[in-house]
Each structure stands twice: as C-alpha cells, then as structure tokens.
C-alpha cells in the first residue's frame, strides 16, 4: 500500500475562526478510511481543501507517486487527477435524465472541443448500462433525475462518482436518508470500491462506520484527535469526552 494523498500541517482560518488547525492525514491506495467527528470538527472543510474549493493558509496537500502539490490546481484539474467527491446533499443535475447525468461523469476528455466534436462515443453507452445496473437504476435511465426519490438520487450520485473512475473517492455522509437495505448496499459498494482505490467516508452514524471495518480518524476542532480501529477510538477517553459522551 503506497501513499496516495498526504495532507500535512494544513491550517485554514475563516474570519478569525480556525476551521482546520495543523491537520495532517495520509491515505494509502487502496485504503478505506472513515472520518468522524462532531459538527464543526472541520470534516467538510477538509474535503473542500482536498478538492480545491478552499485554499488553506498554510500546509501542503501532496498527491500521487510524484507527490505533486494539489494546492495550486483548479477544482477541475484536481477532479481530472482522479479525486471524486460526493456531497452530503445529493447534487445531481435534476433537469437532465439519469443517462445524461452518468454520461457527464464518465471518464473522458474534458475540453470543450473534445466534448463538442466527439460527443458521446458508442462505448460510453455500454459503460452507462453497467453503471446503471450497479446502482439499480437501469429502468430509470430515460427519466429526468429530478423525478427520482431521495435514495435514488443518492445512488445516482454514487454512480456518477464511480463513472469518473477516481483514484480517491471522498464521500460525505453517503447513508443519509437511506433505508437499512440501501445502507447495506452502500456499504458493500464502498467496500468493493476500496479494494482498488482509496475511499474516504465522512459519516455521523457509528453503526455504519463499524460496518465499513476500516481505520477511523476522529477530527475535533480542526485537528486529528485519534486514529485507529473503531474499537480503539471508541474506547479512547478523549474521544468519549468530546464526541461520544455528549
């Protein structure tokens, strides 16, 4: 397992509030990592920094074999490097069909002229079919995605994430609003994805995290409070005090 992403000494301040405080974290490939922490611990801000949405005040985010710094790159460049992100609230393009949503996400060349002149390639249709089968939306391919249920939108977004074929998946609360059966399906899918790539899951639900059977990082006030197996961190007194005990 080689290191894919290394966040080192990152700090960011919003109007005097230290959202991230000297945070260091490293993820291998392949690896599954769960990140937990109370509200305001900096989980979403950390994702914003990795994906280029927020620029930190100091620190480095190194990526891949060449250890390139992600901080100078644009959001789209970082996404092309192979970092995919699933948002807490399902954000699919509601005015477009499920097929169009998946086609948008498929790993292809992203330049305007490539997209305009080459359009949709014949082999894309096959990939879309496979993905739709995997997320259980085969029958809905032609539907406008705004009509889907909340759970189906979550699935579609997971499908879009897989379509990007990222090396690192950042998944924010994937199980929110899902039924127990859907949660189980999600766990399986994430575990399967983590066999070949790095997956970071941010989650509140401890049961869900336990089922992922992976290393857990606890964030608190913008820094790492504890790291280890779920049993290790849940028995840590500090973690119990700031998070579980409340």
């Amino acid at each position, binding site marked *: 397992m080689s290191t894919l992403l290394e966040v080192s000494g990152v700090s960011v301040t919003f109007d005097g509030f230290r959202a991230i405080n000297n945070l260091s974290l490293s993820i291998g490939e392949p690896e599954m990592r769960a990140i937990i922490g109370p509200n305001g611990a900096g989980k979403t801000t950390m994702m914003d920094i990795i*994906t280029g*949405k927020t620029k930190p005040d100091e620190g480095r985010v190194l990526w891949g074999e060449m250890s390139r710094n992600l901080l100078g790159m*644009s*959001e*789209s*460049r970082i*996404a*092309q490097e192979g970092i*995919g*992100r699933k*948002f807490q609230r399902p*954000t699919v*393009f*509601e*005015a*477009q069909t499920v097929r*169009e949503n998946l*086609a*948008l*996400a498929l790993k292809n060349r*992203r*330049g*305007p*002229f490539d*997209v*305009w002149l080459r*359009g*949709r390639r*014949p082999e894309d249709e096959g990939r879309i079919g496979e993905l739709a089968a995997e997320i259980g939306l085969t*029958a809905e391919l032609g539907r406008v995605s705004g009509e889907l249920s909340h759970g189906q939108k979550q699935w579609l977004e997971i499908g*879009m994430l897989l379509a*990007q074929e990222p090396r690192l998946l950042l998944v924010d609360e994937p199980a929110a609003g899902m039924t127990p059966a859907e949660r189980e399906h999600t766990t399986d899918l994430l575990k399967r994805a983590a066999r070949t790539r790095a997956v970071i899951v941010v989650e509140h639900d401890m049961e869900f995290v336990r089922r992922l059977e992976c290393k857990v990082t606890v964030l608190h006030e913008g820094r790492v409070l504890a790291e280890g197996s779920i049993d290790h961190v849940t028995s840590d007194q500090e973690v119990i005090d700031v998070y579980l005990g409340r």
Partner: protein
Amino acid sequence: MQRSFFLRHPSVLIFIGFLALFTLAVTLLADATGTGALSTSFVKTLGRTLCLCLVAIAMDVVWGYCGILSLGHFAFFGIGGYAIGMWLMYARTEEIVAASMAARPLPPTPQELTDAIGTQIFGVVGSSDFPAIWAFAHSLPLQLLAVVLVPGLLALVFGWLAFRSRVTGVYLSILTQAMTLALSLYLFQNDSGLRGNNGLSGLQNIPGAAELGQDVISIRFFWASALALGLGYVLFAWVTSGKMGSVIRAIRDDEARVRFLGYHVESYKLFVFTITAIVAGIAGAIYYPQAGIINPAEIAPIASIYLAVWVAIGGRGRLYGAVIGAAAVSLLSSWFTGGGAPPIDLGFYRILWTDWWLVLLGFAFVAVTLFFPKGIGGLFDLVMIRRPVEDRTGDYGPDAGAWRRDEGREEGEEDR
C-alpha cells in the same frame, strides 16, 4: 447505430422547413422576383427581422442554455455592422469620387484620390484624414474577416477576464452592460474615427452593383439573412445538443458541481460567449446594409436589454422560442412605433401607441416573467399531445394485492 442529427432533433428540421417556406413565399411576393405584393422596404424589414432572430438565438444559447445574462451581445452585433459598414462606405465613396475626378484633364494621383475620399467621409466631423482603424477599409475580404475577428476577440478577452475572476450572475450582467456602454460612448466621440454620432450611412448602396435596383438588392439580402439564420440555427442546435449541450445546461444549473466533475467551467463559458459573439457579429453585418445606417445609438445598452426581453418573451432554453420572440416583438414594435396601430380615444386622453408602446412591452415582459416563465415557446408544450410516459415496466409490487401495470396506467390517464 447512431441516428442522424436531424432525426434526433426533429424541431431543427421543422424550423428549417418553415424558414424555407417563408423565404419562398417572400420571394414570390417580392418586387424583383415575384408579384410585387410586398414593397421593397417591407422585404428589407423582413430581412432585418431574420438577422434579429439570429442574434436572438445566439443570446438564447448564452443566456437560456448557459445561464450567462449577457447585456453585451448587441454590441457585438453593432461591431459586425460597423466592420462591414466601413468597407461599404469606403468603396462606395471611392466609386463616386473616382467618377467625378475622371472628368479632370489630369488623372488624379492615388494620394489625391485617398484625400478626396477622406474629405467626403470625414467632412461631417471636421476632418479629412483616415484614422488608423480604417487601414483595411479598402479591402472587402479584410473587413469581412474583421466582422468575425473583432467581436470574437473582444468576447474572448472580455470573457477570459470576467470568467477567470468567477464573476457570475447579476454582477456579470452589469459588467457586460458596462462594456456595451463604454463602447457606445467611445463611438459617440467625433475623434473615435467612426464619424461620431453620425455613424456610417448610405450602407444600402452596394459598391459595384450600381446597376441593380434596391428591389433586387433587398431580396438578395433577404436570402442571405435567411441562409445565415438557417445555418446559425443548425450550428446552435448542434452546440446545445448531445453531451456539449448537457455540459452547458449543467453549468447553468450548478457550476460548482460541474467543476468537481472535472470540467473547466471557465473554458466552456468562454467558448459559448465567444461563438455567440461571432454569430452576433455576422448577424449585424447582414443587418446593417439592409438598414442603411449604423450609429452608436444602435449599440447602447438598451438594445442589448431588448434582446434579453425578446428571448424571455419567446421562451428561454429553446432556440425556436428565441426566433419567435425576436420576430414577434420586433415586428410588433415597428408596427406600433411606425404609426400602424390605431390610437385609442378614451375621451379624456388619446393613447398614441408611439408613446405607449414601451409601456405595453414592459407590461408584457413582466406578465411573461410572472405567468408564463416558458414564454411563447412554452405554448408548444401545451399544444403537443404529451405521450403518456410509462413510469414502470412491471407491476407495482411483488405481492398479489399490488396494482397490476394496467391499473396504474388507467389511473394515470384519469389524472390527465
């Protein structure tokens, strides 16, 4: 097998069909080529209207599809008009001056000829020297190139600066409006080199075609306008269809999400902004020879706001909507403001439509925005018989008590 582009987008074929029929009808009724039922000036009005339709679909692509409310596209239209107008004016003046000098005992030197043309063109602004921007005015190919390049480059540079700084929404609209205002104020100055508020005139006289009457010229320009509109429609239908269209609409709806999918949103916006600016320039270059005159007032921000009103009334996000909006509103506008509409006598007040047309248009705009956000084009959705969409292919549930597929369909039909 991939079906052909036109089969997948039948509305494009229908539109081209309508345009062809309309062109044929006008040709058969025009003075030069048919019965003469339509006057030459009306043929020109129709040709100009087609050019306005072309700039409206460009506006629809940039606003309705990509979500950039540009209040600068009429400036690009005007630049196209100025670019072609410079050649028209230069070449026409050259003809006249050469003819009058030919009677002199000594043939004029090239310098004398140029000076005489300069005096003719710039006399109204108290000058006789050619400013630097007229350097290519003698050459039709170079000025035609300018029709495409000047709006294209201006849009590219302006768009690059604006999109790169992530200016969006109403701020971007204000920025484009500022660009338009600055351009028109600059052109209003006498020393801008483009004859200040006099603008360029006599553009209806085509150099080298003195023997052709305006009736022939008008129908030829009408054909050119129809051809340009047809080609522009197909081009934009192509841009807004398929995956490109999907990305563009996605940018309109949630540009941050598109970025996280790995698309460089700024490049796409720049692409759309620039290509629509170029088409607007071409539309202007065909429009102004039919109008005969162009002056800086044409570029004023109000013109670009009109453009947005046409597209909103016609229906954003569908190309034929923009065409309908531009044609309907601009023709109605010339009917109302040209004294065509009979005044209404209320006893205590006479409503003269030349004064009240703008008020009426304003109310129409507000009403459309509030009550018919899809615009006139939205009527097509009502007229078209919606095919019932099958919401499922099987039964409603696995157990015996669940609805069968047909029961669900009957229920759905009752709802309709």
